[in-house]
């Protein structure tokens, strides 16, 4: 399911950081920003509450991230108890960039 469809308060795990939907992934700067904030494949998250305008506040560990509706639709998640597929078996998504120097 997408993050938008997840129930409030349910612990879920990101299946892929910023998935493809309608054939168009979010633009790289947004995907990078998501990864920087901890929204990567395998990350456990939880919807804290819905916000006005159709978005939501998502709990990632101790942090709270506000996401708008279009981002919620682009992120796929699974309930935390379900077995997650092996890493590498999914479409690639931009991971955190390695910065050298």
């Amino acid at each position, binding site marked *: 399911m997408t993050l938008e469809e997840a129930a409030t308060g349910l612990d879920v795990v990101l299946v892929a950081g910023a998935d493809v939907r309608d054939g168009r992934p979010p633009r790289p700067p947004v995907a990078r*920003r998501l990864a*920087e*904030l901890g929204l990567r494949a395998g990350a456990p998250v939880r919807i804290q509450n819905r916000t006005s305008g159709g978005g939501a506040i998502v709990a990632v560990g101790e942090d709270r991230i506000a996401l708008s509706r279009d981002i919620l639709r682009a992120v796929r998640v699974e309930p935390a108890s379900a077995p997650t597929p092996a890493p590498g078996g999914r479409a690639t998504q931009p991971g955190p960039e390695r910065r050298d120097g």
Partner: protein
Amino acid sequence: MSSRSPLLEVLAAVAAGAASTAEVSRRTGLDPDRAEAALSALAAAGRIRRVLVLAGACPTQGCRSCGQSRGCASAGAGSLAGSGLSAWRVVAR
């Protein structure tokens, strides 16, 4: 996993635009308390400092002429790092 020292990782994170302890903690993987210790140690060594953001630190010609716009909390598309009044910056040497 990088073999660089944690201090240099933190310094790199600030150089890349991390402006608050939370940002540094996220980027480097250090827990917040340790990230703060690293920031204090780097500040004591004179490598980084805290600056007021949104407070006249910006040049009159706009961000293009600012040498620090890459890490600036007030500029840059989509980045709302360091929301708040102060942020860490690398000291130019």
